[in-house]
């Protein structure tokens, strides 16, 4: 191999290695497990260990409340009807969320919205959310075809 080509090769490899390293770091820093509520419960002990989880579900009607500085709500399967004396949990595939993030809640976040909450599962079974993305309720789905970002990363 000629020395010129060797120089190119070395320079290119150096660039690629550096970028691969940055990418690897970035993945470690920002990776997040994307799970449905049943998947979250099924992952058992691991669920508590994971630094960042994204969990998706429908915001239950009337569940959004403010408690102190946090917004608290419950997500569950689509069209879930909460029984009387309802406690969110594994059996009903519902999950109580405490939103402690700094961002304003997105416009699209309200009853029946499909919410994706990023955060981690606490030992008390409450999911501590730091970031919320929401899509409008399903009946509005078609109108959204051209795309919406509800909040930032």
């Amino acid at each position: 191999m000629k020395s010129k080509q060797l120089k190119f090769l070395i320079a290119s490899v150096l660039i690629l290695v550096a970028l691969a390293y940055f990418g690897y770091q970035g993945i470690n820093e920002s990776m997040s497990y994307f799970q449905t509520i049943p998947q979250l419960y099924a992952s058992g002990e691991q669920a508590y260990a994971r630094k960042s989880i994204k969990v998706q579900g429908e915001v239950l009607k009337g569940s959004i409340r403010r408690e102190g500085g946090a917004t608290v709500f419950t997500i569950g399967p689509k069209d879930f009807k909460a029984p009387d004396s309802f406690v969110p949990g594994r059996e009903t595939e519902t999950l109580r969320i405490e939103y402690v993030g700094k961002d304003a809640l997105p416009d699209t976040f309200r009853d029946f919205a499909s919410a994706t909450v990023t955060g981690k599962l606490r030992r008390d079974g409450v999911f501590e959310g730091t970031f919320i993305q929401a899509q409008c309720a399903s009946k509005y789905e078609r109108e959204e075809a051209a795309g919406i970002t509800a909040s930032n990363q």
Partner: protein
Amino acid sequence: MAQLGQFALALSLIVAFYAIVASLIGIRARNDKLIASGRNAAIGNCIAVSTAIFSLAYLFLTNDFSVSYVAAHSSLDLPLHFKISSVWGGQEGSLLFWSWILTVYSALVIFQNRNKHRAMMPYVTAVLMGTSLFFTAMHLFVANPFKLGGIQMPGGPLSLFRPSDGAGLNPLLQDTLMVIHPPMLYIGMVGFAVPYAFAIAALMSRQLGDTWIRTTRRWTMVTWGVLAIGILLGGNWAYHELGWGGFWAWDPVENASLMPWLIGTAYLHSVMVQEKKGMLKIWNVVLIVAAYTMSIFGTMITRSGLIDSVHAFAKSDIGGYFMAFIVVTVAGAAYLIVDRLPYLKPESQMGSIVSRESSFLFNNLVLLVSCFAVLWGTMFPVISEWYNGNKITVGAPFFNGVNVPIAIFLLFLTGVGPLLAWRKASTNSLKRNFLVPAGIALASGVPLYFLGVNHLYAWLSIVMSIFVGITIIREFYKGAQARAYGTGERFHEAIVNLTLRNTRRYGGYVIHFGFVLLFIGWSGQAFSEKIRLPESKVGQAFQFHQYQMRVEEMGVRNGPNYAAQFASVSLYEYGKKLAIMSPEWRKYGGRDQQGTTEVAIHSTLKADVYLVFQGSTDGVSGDFTIYYNPLVMWVWIGGAVLGIGTVIALLPNRQTSGKKSVPVKAKEGEEVEHAV
């Protein structure tokens, strides 16, 4: 009208198919009449698809809600210009819009070259019509915009149903920018079909010189420039409409438009090496195939719901068809490239590592890595799920981690590359060209640091911007000085004439300068700040940075199809009143009462104050979020300069020069010719 549209699509299917067959048989049999007939069919196809899209527009304008696409995306009270933009507001319509642009491009390019490149053009027709055929089939059989609304009883027949009013367009899309942003993106993405068709035609006809590149240079430039501006308009829309204070979030849909652009940028640079040196022939074909594939793939990501995105597109089954189309496209191109390898030999050897060609090579390398990283990050949930069953997403730290260093390195190449000589740059020319700009840039880095630019990447980006900015200004200055001296023109005339005589080179510099400004604006992101002010009352005042703000009023007002809560907040800087900001929180009518924020932005060249009002429950107190976004305006200014540069680069070179018409050769003309 729906029947007319439907009929036009059926006609398009037949005509496009005929155009392919006629062109291919025509070139085999050397039958000029048949080739001409294929050409005419392609133009006829454009008329058919135009008829279809105008029928759809008519259905929107006449509120024909019997068509389910119209019923789902429009309503009686929707303002006129949004009725028109609803044509491409949803999946079926936007795919038809894609088709339409494709057939218009095809007709134009086929007509433009009707008497040229005889061996190549029939193949161009066949490739373009092949793409059109695919899309028309999608309209007719998978995502039909003319489908009538109806209710299907189980086991029973479909009973047609015409609602009295439509569902309305999503409020977030009721924005003037949303009228032009999607068409701009599509005009850009679809544009890659033309150079792609020529590349395939060049392979098929074994005419692998640079004819296909020269013929499509303007198409590629337009495509690239329009896509760049389309992406920026999307960012601008997100910035002023979505209310989270930023303009780019690495969302899959944003990424989908960025990927073809990145490869297009690589292609735009590497073709110069082929034109000038006869090298990188295989590479250029590969790049344009990749750019085109990425634009199809991007359309698919946006439209198929393959990847969960906060862009809530309707999930549908178009993904599989698109994937099959992409596989056929790539496999066909790969076969042709391998089969024609003997025709793709380089005509000269690579130069030194400090040379023009090597700067192009590194430019290409990192642009491709960037595209790959964006693709990897976008597809990560799909890849990880396939690999170990866990759906894992990655976010901004990954995308920025890879792309920010790449972007800064590219900016560096932008300054250095155009001034390096082909083959090998001499040490002397390096000193002459770079000593002064590098010196000034580094010298200004010190005060910048003490002024508070203490973020490594932001500092590098600004220092590099200064360096590149100076090299570009010097190029204009030196060229104009030499010209003014030679022709007796005044300096400013010399600048204009200089530019017009080599539009490609100087237009390129203007584009590069646009990027310098864009980078400056983008660096400001490192210093963005925000605060939340929950339950703030009328009369309350806050201090934020050098600004003071006071809530003056809260109230309610009505728009044409919404009701808004608003707040008036006066903004002072160091005690001086700047503006009254009036953000709103709107509720739109329609089936669903969606609330959206209308932010108020006070923009200056220095910084934006960005105020979000989240509504009030009692009329006297409400929630606010304030963002301080330094230098954002330079992003938009950079975008405008980039657009102007693209237009300059598209102008034909003016042959005669100024007053005395004495041709003047710029001092370093040899070195820097074809800078773009």
